[in-house]
Every structure is written in C-alpha cells, then in structure tokens.
C-alpha cells in the first residue's frame, strides 16, 4: 500500500510479530485470514438458508401461515439497529485509519450499544413467543399457538413446529454471533482506550469490523425471509 500513498514502508510497531518480514505482510495476512474466515461463516449459514428454502418448497402454506406470527415491527427495528451499527463500525475503522482514537472509542460504544439493543429486542421476541407455547420442535404447543394465532386473525396450517424450529435455529445462531461480536467489540474498545490503534496498526479494528458487517449481512437476508416474505 505504501506505494499507493507514496510513503516508505511502515516502521515496525509494538504489535509486529517476528515471523513476518514486514508490517504490511502482517496486516495483509490478517485481512486475508479474516476474509477466508468470513467465507466459512457464509457457508455455515448457507446450510440453514437451504433448510429454510427446502421447507418452504415442501410446505409453502405452512411457512406462510406461520410467519404471520412473527412481529414485523420488532424485526424491522432490529434491522435498522443493525444497519446503523454497521455504519458506526465502518466509522470506527475510519477513525482508526486517520488516527482519531476518541473517534474509535465513541463509534465502538455506539456499535456495542446497538448490538445490545438488538439482543434486548430479540429477548422480548423470544419470550413473547414462548409465552404462547411457540417453542422449537417437539416442545411446540400446537393448542396454545393456534389459539394465539386465532386471536390475531391468522390460522396455523400443517406442521408449524418446523417453521419455528428453523426460525429459532437461524435467529439463535445469528444471536450467538451477535453475542460473540459484543465480546470482541468490547475487547478492541479496551485496546483502543490503551491507544493501541492508529494509522500504523489497526488490523484488529478492521477485522472485527469485517466480522460485524457479515453478521449484519446475514440479518439482511434473515429479516425478509423469516418476517416479511409472503
């Protein structure tokens, strides 16, 4: 990159690992590693998406009937929250690039805040479902769920436990990723407070950012598929 900015090669920083030859090599390896890791994340989620599509093909009416029980508003709020957190994350990386440490911290705190809001909304969504007997798989209580659906003017068709099984699995795995994301965001925020990051070295911020964006990307697909599509 150095050539792109017309500066000389970067000087080794405090976090330079000796098995690398140059700072750029270390940063490049970290970033490529992250992208390859993201590829595995996408493929892992793709299994659940495929399961979802297969279920949709096998039981179209059941999926359409069941998805009415999900709250579009809560899903929509979460979508907006996650998109905004992606924005603040990108801003945190930018702050690191230009050496604005308070900016990194401010943006990371906003990102973490959004992630927490997301989890809180998820908590209310889940407990709201559980309260009406909507559990995954064999714990699904057809009677209470059907009564709940009837209250809201919908009708359960076929075997809704499958839809909610996949719903809880997909959003659950995504939720786990958000929780892990909160953990690593807090970690880099603490490091940012110690002043570890600047234009010379910001790989961790950038890579956590990439991870966070992929969590957002997955939700971009989950939201319409589970909550919206008719």
């Amino acid at each position, binding site marked *: *990159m150095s050539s*792109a*900015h017309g500066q000389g090669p970067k000087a080794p920083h405090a976090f330079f690992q000796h098995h690398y*030859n*140059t700072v750029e*090599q270390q*940063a*490049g390896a970290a*970033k*490529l590693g992250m*992208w*390859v890791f*993201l*590829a595995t994340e*996408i*493929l892992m989620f*793709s*299994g659940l998406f*495929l399961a979802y*599509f*297969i279920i949709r*093909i*096998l039981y179209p*009416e059941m999926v359409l009937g069941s998805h009415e029980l999900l709250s*579009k508003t809560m899903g*929509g709020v979460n979508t*907006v929250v996650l*998109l905004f957190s*992606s*924005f603040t*994350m*990108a*801003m945190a990386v*930018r702050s690191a*690039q*230009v050496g604005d440490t308070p900016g990194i911290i401010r943006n990371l705190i906003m990102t973490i805040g959004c992630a927490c809001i997301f989890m809180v909304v998820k908590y209310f969504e889940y407990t709201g479902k559980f309260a009406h007997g909507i559990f995954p798989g*064999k714990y699904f*209580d*057809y*009677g*209470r769920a*059907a*009564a709940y659906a*009837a209250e809201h003017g919908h009708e*359960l*068709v*076929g*075997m809704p*436990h499958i839809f909610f099984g996949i719903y809880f699995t997909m959003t659950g795995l995504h939720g786990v990723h958000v929780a892990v994301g909160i953990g690593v965001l807090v970690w880099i925020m603490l490091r940012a407070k110690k002043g570890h990051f600047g234009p010379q070295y910001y790989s961790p911020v950038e890579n956590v*950012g*990439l991870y966070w*964006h992929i969590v*957002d*990307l997955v939700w971009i*697909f989950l*939201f*319409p598929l589970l909550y*919206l*599509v*008719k």
Partner: protein
Amino acid sequence: MTTKTFLHGKPIDDVIECHEHVSPVSLYVKVLLSLFVLTGLTYAVSFADLGPASLWVAMIVAFGKATLVAMFFMHLKYDDRYHGFVFLSTIIFVAIFFLFPIFDLNSRARLNEEQGTFFRVNQAGDWNEAQRTNKGQVEAEAKAAAEAAKDAAKAPADAKAVAPAKP
C-alpha cells in the same frame, strides 16, 4: 540471476501487501441512508400482495443491500481483488449447494404426487400424533392439552395420520 529483490514471489517494487483506503464520512452516510430506504422498501412491499414475485423482490432488494455493505462498509470496492474473489467464489459455492438439493426436490415431486405421500397427507394432519407415537417423550398432559385445544381451534378434521395405503 537478477539483482532484483523478491518478496513473496514478486519483485519488491510491485508488491502490494495491504490496500488501505480512507473513505469520506459522507460516503458512509449516503450508504447508510440508502440501506434505510431499501429496508423501508422491503417492509412496504411485504404488505402488498405480489404472490410468488414477493420472494424475488425481497431477495433482489436484500442482495442490493448486501452489495452496498460489502462494497463500501467492507471496502471490497477498494480492496485487494483477491478478497473479492474469495467472497464471490463463496457465493458461487453456496449457489452450488442450493442448486442440487432444490433441483432434486423439484424433479422428484412427480412421483410423490402420483402416490400421495406422508408429507402431503401429514401436512394437514396430526403431527402431534406422529410425535407421540414415535418419540413418547413429551409430557402426557401437554399432548392432551394440545389435542383438546386443537379440536377447539378447528384444525383440519381429516387429521388422521394415514399409513401407506394397504390393500
């Protein structure tokens, strides 16, 4: 032998180890606003009755949003092209993974329709029954409650698990 310095298989003066690109804040803001607009669009469309097209519309919008995030927030637009290659080839392999099972499912449906399957029969049927007879793990009262409530909720009346037709 040349006197050129090589690093990682390339002459050192050409080597690009790590792209850095600082995007302006205004770009990020524009991307965020577009994402919000697209989200609003899917949300609005979900209330319109588009039939089978709604899945396609939703997916196209989602792909648009994903592209925005990947290109600008994730810097793919300015990044080492190999990273984009990794990302795109992942999508291609996901497509392969999706293609064959869905193709299989669609092209074997013919036989199922001829014969009538457990699937089709069970769909309107009593999955709780199937669950009890096969697993016997759910508490008895939960099942009883489900059974009773189901009748009340007027679940399809022909809710009998139908065994394969026997002569």
